[in-house]
């Protein structure tokens, strides 16, 4: 919708006037690009040296990771440049692929076929359409949004109310009912649970990440002076700003609308933090780890790695506070929680893979890069990060 409005404007003007990107975000994106280039160069150089001290398995994992990060970065960057609708659509495709891997890994029976068709082609697209519209009807701007809002009496409705329960309630009720209709009762509960869980993890949880871009963010940071405002960003043109100021005295006397930052920057920050927490946990585990959390689930995850990783993530997250509406200590807390959730996601997915007897979701069916392996921590962290941001840093009234 944002694109339709402004597509005749020059691109940069679009980005800035939409409050979408801003200078701090550019900085962060630049730093990440440089870091990725360095990582790629190191990985490729080591690969060319046959007698290196690094073990080939480790190097292969590293290079795979770097490739996955480039992919993630490309998706986020495309979203950053082309607007929130594109971000949501791209995340939708990631969900679709992850769901594909999950169901492929999970044995289902013939009787589940039609249910699976619903899961892939009805629930997944609907969830992302709802997330994509998001607050679009709260204050409809474009003619199409106004038409939809008026025709279906949706004006003023935040679709959060629907997309936050559509899968956990309605899809979860529909799935067992549809399996029952197929007439195959064998291991019924197990099959329902598998499909419900896969939809919950791959689609529902992940969809909270792109949902971040619709929040009207508030901040407790002191207001910046005018000179830095003008270089940093232009004030968003639309109503949320004024709305927020009206609502402000009631709920939060000290908070003000966060105008100097970009919402896309927050999404970028979130994905970056989750990925960094993976790396830090791995690094700490390699350096100090000797107390394995659960040897039968994952032999490489240790308590030392977990604690060290979460604390390091909190520190780095705090240092990047300037991209976010969070103050330094708030950014530290958010990053810590994100790291803990990410780790929980990694453990859960390890348990599932161990149960299925595979090491990577990618190797179950040969030759596929395991998307699920890369996003498991994002899936677990996204809902928590979203809700913390929603309740503490946004105007959701």
């Amino acid at each position, binding site marked *: 919708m944002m694109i339709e409005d402004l597509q005749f404007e020059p691109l940069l003007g679009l980005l800035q006037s939409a409050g979408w990107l801003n200078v701090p975000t550019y900085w962060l994106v630049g730093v990440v690009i440089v870091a990725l280039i360095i990582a790629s160069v190191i990985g490729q150089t080591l690969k060319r040296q046959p007698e290196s001290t690094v073990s080939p398995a480790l190097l292969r994992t590293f290079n795979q990771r770097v490739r996955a990060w480039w992919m993630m970065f490309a998706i986020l960057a495309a979203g950053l440049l082309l607007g929130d609708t594109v971000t949501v659509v791209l995340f939708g495709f990631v969900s679709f692929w992850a769901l*594909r891997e999950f169901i*492929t890994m999970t044995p289902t029976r013939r009787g589940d*076929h*039609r249910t699976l*068709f619903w899961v*892939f082609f009805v629930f997944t697209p609907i969830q992302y359409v709802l997330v994509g519209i998001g607050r679009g009807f709260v204050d409809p701007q474009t003619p199409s949004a106004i038409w939809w809002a008026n025709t279906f009496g949706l004006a003023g409705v935040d679709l959060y109310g629907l997309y936050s329960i559509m899968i956990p309630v309605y899809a979860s009720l529909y799935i067992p009912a549809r399996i029952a209709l197929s007439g195959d009762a064998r291991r019924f509960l197990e099959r329902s649970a598998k499909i419900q869980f896969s939809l919950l993890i791959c689609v529902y949880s992940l969809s909270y990440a792109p949902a971040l871009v619709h929040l009207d963010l508030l901040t407790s940071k002191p207001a910046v002076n005018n000179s830095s405002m003008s270089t940093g960003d232009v004030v968003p043109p639309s109503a949320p700003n004024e709305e927020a100021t009206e609502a402000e005295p009631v709920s939060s006397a000290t908070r003000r609308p966060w105008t100097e930052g970009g919402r896309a920057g927050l999404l970028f920050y979130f994905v970056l933090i989750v990925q960094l927490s993976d790396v830090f946990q791995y690094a700490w585990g390699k350096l100090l780890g000797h107390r394995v959390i659960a040897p039968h689930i994952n032999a490489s995850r240790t308590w030392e790695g977990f604690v060290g990783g979460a604390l390091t993530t909190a520190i780095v997250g705090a240092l990047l506070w300037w991209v976010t509406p969070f103050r330094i200590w708030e950014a530290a807390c958010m990053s810590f929680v994100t790291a803990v959730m990410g780790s929980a996601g990694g453990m859960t997915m390890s348990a599932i893979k161990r149960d299925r007897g595979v090491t990577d979701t990618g190797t179950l*069916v*040969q030759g*596929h890069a395991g998307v699920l392996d890369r996003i498991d921590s994002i899936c677990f962290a996204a809902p928590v990060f979203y809700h913390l941001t929603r309740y503490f840093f946004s105007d959701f009234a």
Partner: protein
Amino acid sequence: MSLTATILSVIAKLMAGSSVRWVDCQPDTCQRVYFANHTSHLDALVLWSSLPRNIRALTRAVAAKDYWDKSSFRRYIAGSVNALLIDRENIKVHRSPVELMIQAIGNTHSLIVFPEGGRNATDEMGEFKSGLYYLGKKRPDLELVPVYIDNLNRVLPRGEFLPVPLLSCITIGPPMWLEAGESKAEFLKRARESVKRLKDI
């Protein structure tokens, strides 16, 4: 290759998310008979699509005439992927399926066959029919290449018409030939084992 064929193969690849592994076997334009397990309507199309383009142009999937000749739409699809339709029901003298296949491939084409005959509803692979043996006997120069198709039965099971886009895997194994003095039963058993073995590689 026709536009329809290209579109069909792209759709098949997207739907089946198939990865292709060549195990002890390389893509080659020499005359081959790819024989595979059969669990889904998509088998022939996906296997055909997963061959490299130049080989695809030389390869014809053998399909049942009683099914693919029924409507003009089916005929069109079968024609655009250059399928070889064989009558399973009224077999004439001197026009046996094997004879027709050998005639059709001449000295250039390769074939895709499903020696189980029909699609298999269970997880266990069915016994192989004898056609493969006669092909190997009459044309000893043909490379007989086993192929294992994994997970396609979940993409489009028997009796369903809407596919579910899961990931599938096609494993193409080392070529084999009919050994001197090998009996029909022995050969068919060995061929079946060679397909089955690819499942666990």
